[in-house]
């Protein structure tokens, strides 16, 4: 399983590297048009599909950026989360957070 995860990790690293290179080299004046073109090319989407996917993905980016500025992003949606949800969420997040921190710190030690 670990080998599988590592393989995937390398693959996404490659994808990000390639797309970053394209972004840097093309220096897009209109990043949204660049975004749609890359989606079309990389994910083999039609014009219409790329337009829809670009909107969905940008919606996610903007929601994240908006929520990050809030004191508690879950507070405005408290009707959607039970107390049990919140506790379970925080426990799970603690595990992931510690994992990431340890990994980042271990890189610095290497």
């Amino acid at each position, binding site marked *: 399983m670990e080998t599988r995860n590592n393989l995937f990790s390398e693959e996404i690293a490659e994808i990000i590297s390639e797309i970053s290179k394209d972004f840097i080299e093309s220096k897009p004046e209109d990043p949204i048009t660049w975004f749609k073109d890359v989606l079309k090319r990389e994910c083999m989407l039609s014009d219409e599909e790329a337009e829809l996917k670009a909107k969905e993905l940008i919606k996610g980016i903007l929601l994240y950026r908006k*929520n990050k500025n809030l004191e508690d992003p879950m507070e405005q949606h408290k009707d959607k989360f039970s107390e049990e949800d919140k506790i379970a969420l925080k426990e799970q997040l603690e595990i992931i957070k510690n994992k990431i921190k340890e990994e980042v710190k271990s890189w610095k030690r290497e």
Partner: protein
Amino acid sequence: MEERVEEFEYINEDIELKGEDLINAVAYYKAKEAGLIEDTGIPDSSYGVLGAMATDVMTATRDYFEGKINEEELESSIDRSLFTAVSTIATTAITAVTKPIGEFIKSKIPPVLHHVVDGAITFVREKLVKEAVRLVEKGWNLAKSFVKKIFA
């Protein structure tokens, strides 16, 4: 420029889009399309959330390696990014999945049975919260090789 404002008018705020966010969002969406991330029906906007989260974690990591922030600030930044990503994905998924389904089913059955639908929705909602956490963890697992390559 005018087109962009109209296109994203559902966000009534001026929020800057970063190039890294767009790059990472394409990468995650492509990973999902390629089967590297299991498609569990979570809305595609989640991959945009993952992209923005990855940008923030990468920035915090870079700042930590360059000595601009200390360990405590790194932890705080990662904590905030993860929490924001999970709560955003979970909220979006719950709204997109459970509300329309619940309203549709309730319109088809007698009111006396509505509590059964509410119970089923609670079950689905709990699964979606767990799915959001799993997706963010997967997002990190997929991104870390790239982060390490740049900064380590």
